[in-house]
């Protein structure tokens, strides 16, 4: 098998390059390990994909480095060995996956602890994706991604109902612009049908009847009506809050530094805050899942970060935008993404994206001019009547935690008993999340964990409806109960003081400005907080008992202010002036 990789690598690199780069390939039981040093990150990724694309290869550890594009230096955090907790299951990472697993585990008579290095849940890809609950048509039919996508899509509506999170079936039109590409739709249709996904081919007339905003240049489309939209961060928050209500404990600002083991079995997890005794740990660490895996023994797989950029548009412009989600299918396309599309978020904002850019930095959430232009150029032809540029209100990027197999890696560790990897969760990770949690529970049972149902489990979480959407009489009733409802702080999204105060006192601590934003939408409108920022900060400061200058945007290292004005200068400086 390694011979295959060698052959493929020869196609990629000239003989002298292979020598210069000192590329080494090791293969063992379908696991490939690559090492050496090339010039560019793109070469690293290509080599990894070549290895991962070989039939029978189950995992790729890619240790090739790019001499001219080194990733930012990694500063290993210092662990604190003092034992501060104990649990039947410790979950590393409070993204959508970690939170979903925590909630599913909280059904049973188990103690569950979730460790999150950031100041809030959903701080990685879980907050920075398009919120689409995919139908599954683009997935390889026999992949784990496909299977869990389908199952997840089927479970999703019920989960959102239980957790009171927005869920809207939006339909998806995958479009082609060239007659000669119509056959691609037939292929996609066949693939969808093979997986049992409802799909429908439509001609241009049917398509524009369904969605008048779409371009008359479109030659045909495949509809996938089970496609839906949700709010990815609200769902993560809801999962976490429901898990907490049912007994799980979340530790924010807590980074894992080591795994403790005895005779090949896990005994504990050490973090920057202290250590936790446990015999079972779930690695849901997203872009850092390979680093966590390597704490248990030899590396088992490599995550290569792939950035996706998105643009969000003003809600007012939605009337000129398509209500259904759209995508473009073409022969010449990036093989590692279906290429993104246009959609409306559950909050009603048009959204375009994502791009797919391989990056060496796992936290490269920057949006580039190139990425913005690429999105605007690619998707503008779909909606000829939509003026995109003036409607932009924000943009962001997330990093997909892809493996070189380009499939989910959900399996017990090869080296450490009690450690389960839930890694490589890229698209359709959101749609698959409920099914991933289900699968993890199955694995835990196979590993010998006994799951006894808890009578007290409450599957439901309720969130009060947005004040601004209530009828007048109801608004008046609430204002009489609490006048803070009558104080609108965010004019764009019409959020009241009471709603902000409530968001600051929920089961899961809300510690930062961004965390308040994700729970209330405050500052997410067209002015992007220009008006309400000072007002929201005053409320956060008051409610959390934190001096204003200590309020952060997204946790430690992100102070919003340097000092109070009119403070006396420090003595030394005062004299030197």
């Amino acid at each position, binding site marked *: 098998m390694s011979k295959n990789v060698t052959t493929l690598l020869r196609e990629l690199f000239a003989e002298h390059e292979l020598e210069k780069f000192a590329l080494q390939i090791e293969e063992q039981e379908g696991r490939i390990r690559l090492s050496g040093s090339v010039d560019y990150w793109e070469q690293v990724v290509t080599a990894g994909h070549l290895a991962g694309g070989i039939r029978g290869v189950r995992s790729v550890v890619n240790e090739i480095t790019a001499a001219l594009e080194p990733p930012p230096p990694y500063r290993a955090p210092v662990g604190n060995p003092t034992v501060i907790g104990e649990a039947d299951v410790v979950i590393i990472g409070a993204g959508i996956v970690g939170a979903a697993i925590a909630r599913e585990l909280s059904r049973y008579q188990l103690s569950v602890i979730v460790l999150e290095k950031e100041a809030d849940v959903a701080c990685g890809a879980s907050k920075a994706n398009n919120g689409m609950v995919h139908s599954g048509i683009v997935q390889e039919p026999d992949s784990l991604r496909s299977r869990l996508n389908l199952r997840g899509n089927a479970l999703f509506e019920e989960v959102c109902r239980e957790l009171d999170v927005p869920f809207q079936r939006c339909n998806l039109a995958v479009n082609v612009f060239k007659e000669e590409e119509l056959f691609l739709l037939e292929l996609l249709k066949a693939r969808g049908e093979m997986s049992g996904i409802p799909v429908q081919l439509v001609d241009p007339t049917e398509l524009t009847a369904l969605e008048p905003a779409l371009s008359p240049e479109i030659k045909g489309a495949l509809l996938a009506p089970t496609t839906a939209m949700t709010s990815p961060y609200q769902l993560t928050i809801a999962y976490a809050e429901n898990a907490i209500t049912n007994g799980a404990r979340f530790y924010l600002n807590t980074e894992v530094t080591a795994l403790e083991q005895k005779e090949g079995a896990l005994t504990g997890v050490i973090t920057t805050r202290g250590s936790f005794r446990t015999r079972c740990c779930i690695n849901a660490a997203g872009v850092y899942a390979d680093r966590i895996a390597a704490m248990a023994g030899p590396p088992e797989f490599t995550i290569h970060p792939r950035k996706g950029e998105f643009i969000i548009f003003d809600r007012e412009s939605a009337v000129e935008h398509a209500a259904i989600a759209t995508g473009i299918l073409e022969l010449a396309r990036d093989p590692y993404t279906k290429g993104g599309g246009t959609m409306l978020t559950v909050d009603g904002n048009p959204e375009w994206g994502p791009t797919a850019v391989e990056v060496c930095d796992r936290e490269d959430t*920057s949006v580039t001019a190139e*990425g913005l232009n690429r999105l605007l150029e690619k998707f503008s032809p779909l909606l000829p009547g939509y003026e995109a540029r003036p409607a932009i209100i924000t943009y962001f990027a997330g990093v997909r935690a892809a493996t070189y197999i380009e499939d989910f890696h959900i399996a017990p560790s090869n080296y450490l008993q009690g450690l389960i990897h839930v890694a490589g969760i890229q698209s359709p990770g959101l749609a698959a999340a409920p099914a991933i949690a289900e699968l993890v529970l199955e694995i835990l049972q196979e590993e010998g964990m006994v799951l006894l149902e808890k009578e007290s489990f409450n599957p439901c979480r309720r969130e009060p409806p947005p004040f601004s959407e209530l009828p007048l009489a109801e608004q008046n009733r609430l204002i009489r109960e609490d006048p803070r409802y009558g104080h609108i702080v965010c004019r764009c999204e019409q959020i009241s003081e009471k709603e902000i105060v409530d968001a600051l006192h929920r089961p899961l601590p809300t510690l930062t400005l961004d965390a308040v934003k994700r729970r209330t939408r405050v500052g997410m409108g067209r002015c992007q907080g220009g008006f309400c*920022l*000072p007002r929201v900060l005053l409320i956060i400061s008051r409610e959390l008992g934190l001096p204003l200058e200590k309020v952060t945007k997204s946790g430690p290292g*992100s102070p*919003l202010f340097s000092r109070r*004005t009119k403070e006396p200068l420090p003595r030394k400086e005062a004299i030197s002036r």
Partner: protein
Amino acid sequence: MNHEQIAVIGGGPAGLAAALAASEAGADEIVLIERDRELGGILNQCVHDGFGNLIFGCSLTGPEYAHRFVDQLPQHPPIKVLTDTMVLQLKQDRRLKAVNREGAFEMKPGAVILAMGCRERSRFQVMIPGYRPAGVYTAGAVQRLINMEGLMPGERVVILGSGDIGLIMARRLTLEGAKVLGVFEILPRPGGLTRNVVQCLHDFEIPLYLSHTVTFIHGKKRLQGVSVAPVDHLGKPLQEQERFIPCDTLILSVGLIPENELSRSAGMIIDPSTGGPRVDQDMATSVEGIFAGGNVVLVYDLVDEVTRAARIAGRAAAHYVSGVKRTAGRLILQPGENVAALVPQQLSLPLKAGEKINLYLRVSSEIRDAVVTLLRQGKVIFQKKLRIVRPPEMVHLQIESSLFEDLHDGEEITCRVTAQEVNQN
């Protein structure tokens, strides 16, 4: 439902002037609705002086200017003030919904005056690439933070955009002990008034980099620095000349947009060149009984001009509720060569004898020895010479209505600003 005669939305300079003018013109029930805890709007955070030269003949600070109006309110019993009150909705039939700590309520006044002012453009609207760390603020937000909340946004500051608030904040931050590393302006000329360039930058030795922009925002948690680069004549950054400036704060002063969410929800026509509703000489919008005054119509250079425009709206609204209406059609005012924005966009007929019409316009490019011309079917009906016209400085003309006497409903008048010699022939 309450049926006040006139509702004024916004208690900043425009709303104050409009309410007072409506009261002076005889309206007997006016409700002035302000979302903040006190009247005055943005003036309250403007602790610098320079306000009131045109109207009061002296240079006041923002709060002083506001109080010249607030102090008159007790002499105007028809004006009822509602602070801490947010208007959530305005419908085409003038029904509006508002909310405050006492409750949510609806009213249907006889006339509405829009005086919501304007808001700042964000980094996203000018599409600056990069990360989204703490430490990136709009100039107006920083002004409020420093002057009203007593908080410093940071210590090493880069300012993008040379609009007036950006220039004023460069000086303010310097006085508060921060280091302003430079003001970067994408255009080859400053965006703000000349007096502000001199008093806020030159006097403090703060460098101004024209034809430059910020090309990347660095920093995952707190701002670590920005990349800046000169731009070509199309505003495209010259990548090979990009350089990194370490800083902890980026302040944006990249333009103001009239705040027109309510106007749009009421279904009125918005002029894309001003960003505000189309208005006539009475500041009447395209929706019956709804008037607009101040920066909600057009972002003016000076608050004095806001006051003047809002007074017109206030007076006109009072006349409207007393039954005085212009119903004989309209003349259309069209921006022509070198006119980027023009207010009013139409003149409602009939015109009154001796009526003075205030025309505000912004040019697209600078011209020395310019001439403003009004044309009717290609024929010159008015000309005025100006020594210099510059995009940051609005042109104000006062025209006698007699000029338009023989014009009929539906006729167009084009306004252009050209160099003088072109018009000799």
